[in-house]
């Protein structure tokens, strides 16, 4: 069987940055496996700008950001295979992949970095009531069709969900001549960045219906009508508040989920992010298998993805040199009240650097609150937040010496100012 020191699953921003991180720490026997026909992954269809402000100190479009990393991969002559699909991973780190040239191939890897990104929740996932006509698709699908294949997916479009991709597609479709009738968001707040609310909706007078959802889709061959209604606090539609839109297309921007199936099948424990539970080296419960980028937890900014993935690549390099300590008793980190998820899920003080880094999301927008860190029930840190919102991931560093033991539980929670 063919062998590789490091196999990287996914050739998007995370996979390329992980490869560069590992290579620069001395790993030369690397192979990147990419499902699509190009390196760069989803960045290729994100033709809008706003990428790279942290990583490159300038504002780039998605394809420009991707090209910076493609160049880094090619400069290092790191091998990659395109149009290549990984079908399984074993605990012994045998990876099975297939493509049209090599057929089905098994490779024995010494280390694996999972960098397979995330997928979109679709119509089936949210169970929209009504007919099942053509013309209902996810925002990412509409983006791929429009920006890479040149197909305008519809002429009268309604959008469900106020995630950033949905907002960006509202602008894109408008610029290409479609009429975007409105955006419905089931939450009482928008899930997109203010910048996108202003520059994608308000600039083009596209109405936003907060606390609304689609209650029915009607159409025979093609979508004809979308019915929306206001929802109560429990997100149940309120009868009598329905509005009807004559739309030929419904675009869904209703959430992203880590594409973690390959690791799920191994029985690797997951966190509340729905990605693998990892330690501070992005290592899963199986030593030598790492996870980073959107397959670990869904990020808002690609700049954060590449930073995380480079660190995962560096950790894989340490592992391959035998310098990453074996798993032992360590500290568990759990999301408490008001916190959606936290990465990492485990930390070993003996192995970590001077700072402990926590990445997490809150469940709902709040003002004038504290993020509370408790260690074995004792408050070790309180951080004031004037504003905190679910659509922006928090990244916080704490000095390692704040902890007095290498065993127990850190709970991160959100508390009101008064308490």
């Amino acid at each position, binding site marked *: 069987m063919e062998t590789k020191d490091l196999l990287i699953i996914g050739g998007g921003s995370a996979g390329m940055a992980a490869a560069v991180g590992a290579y620069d720490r001395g790993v030369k026997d690397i192979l990147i496996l990419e499902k699509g026909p190009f390196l760069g992954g989803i960045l290729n269809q994100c033709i809008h700008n706003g990428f790279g402000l942290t990583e490159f100190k300038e504002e780039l*479009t998605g*394809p420009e950001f991707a*090209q910076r990393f493609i160049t880094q991969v090619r400069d290092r002559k790191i091998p990659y295979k395109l149009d290549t699909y990984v079908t399984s991973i074993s605990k012994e780190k045998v990876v099975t992949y297939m493509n049209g040239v090599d057929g089905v191939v098994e490779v024995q890897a010494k280390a694996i970095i999972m960098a397979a990104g995330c997928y979109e929740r679709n119509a089936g996932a949210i169970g929209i009531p009504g007919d099942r006509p053509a013309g209902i698709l996810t925002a990412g699908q509409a983006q791929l069709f429009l920006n*890479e294949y*040149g197909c305008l997916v519809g002429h009268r479009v309604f959008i469900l969900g106020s995630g950033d991709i949905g907002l960006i597609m509202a602008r894109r479709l408008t610029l290409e001549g479609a009429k975007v009738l409105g955006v419905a968001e089931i939450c009482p707040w928008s899930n997109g*960045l*203010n*910048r996108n609310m*202003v520059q994608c909706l308000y600039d083009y007078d596209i109405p936003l219906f907060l606390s609304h959802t689609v209650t029915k889709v009607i159409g025979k061959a093609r979508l004809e009508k979308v019915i929306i209604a206001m929802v109560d606090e429990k997100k149940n539609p309120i009868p009598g508040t329905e509005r009807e839109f004559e739309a030929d297309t419904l675009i869904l921007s209703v959430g992203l989920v880590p594409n973690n199936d390959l690791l799920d099948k191994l029985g690797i424990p997951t966190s509340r992010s729905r990605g693998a539970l990892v330690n501070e080296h992005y290592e899963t419960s199986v030593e030598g298998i790492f996870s980073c980028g959107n397959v670990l937890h869904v990020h808002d900014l690609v700049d954060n993805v590449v930073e995380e993935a480079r660190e995962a690549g560096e950790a894989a390099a340490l592992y391959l040199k035998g310098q990453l300590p074996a798993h032992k008793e360590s500290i568990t980190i759990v999301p408490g009240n008001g916190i959606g998820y936290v990465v990492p899920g485990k930390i070993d003080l003996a192995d970590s650097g001077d700072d402990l880094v926590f990445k997490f999301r809150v469940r709902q927008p709040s003002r004038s609150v504290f993020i509370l860190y408790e260690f074995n029930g004792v408050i070790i840190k309180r951080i004031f937040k004037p*504003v905190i919102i679910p659509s922006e991931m928090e990244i916080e560093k704490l000095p390692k010496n704040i902890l007095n033991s290498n065993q127990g539980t850190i709970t991160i929670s959100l508390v009101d100012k008064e308490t």
Partner: protein
Amino acid sequence: MADTNLICINCPRGCHLTVDEHLNVTGNFCPRGAVYGKQEVTNPTRVVTSTVRIDQAELALCPVKTAQPIPKKKIFEVMASINEVHLTAPVHIGDVVIGDAAATGVAVVVTRNMEKIS
């Protein structure tokens, strides 16, 4: 001129700004809001990104952008000129496809390397 209501885009706080006829900004939590409010009322600008047709490349479309922000009221004129562009591969990031888009003085440039296919 009546008061203009805006949402500040500088940070997640999203202050609701009011700009009066003398360009006084209220509702801002920090000075960045005042700068943004004045700019949005006097000369709002945006970077426009889109695609143009391309022949002999692996895809039928090539992404492009305005090299600098252009006046917001010119967005649709710039889009009309972008829609007339038809490229032939190879093209590379930064290649100018329109020198002066809709008399804005701003160029439109390629944002993706696309090689010629054999």
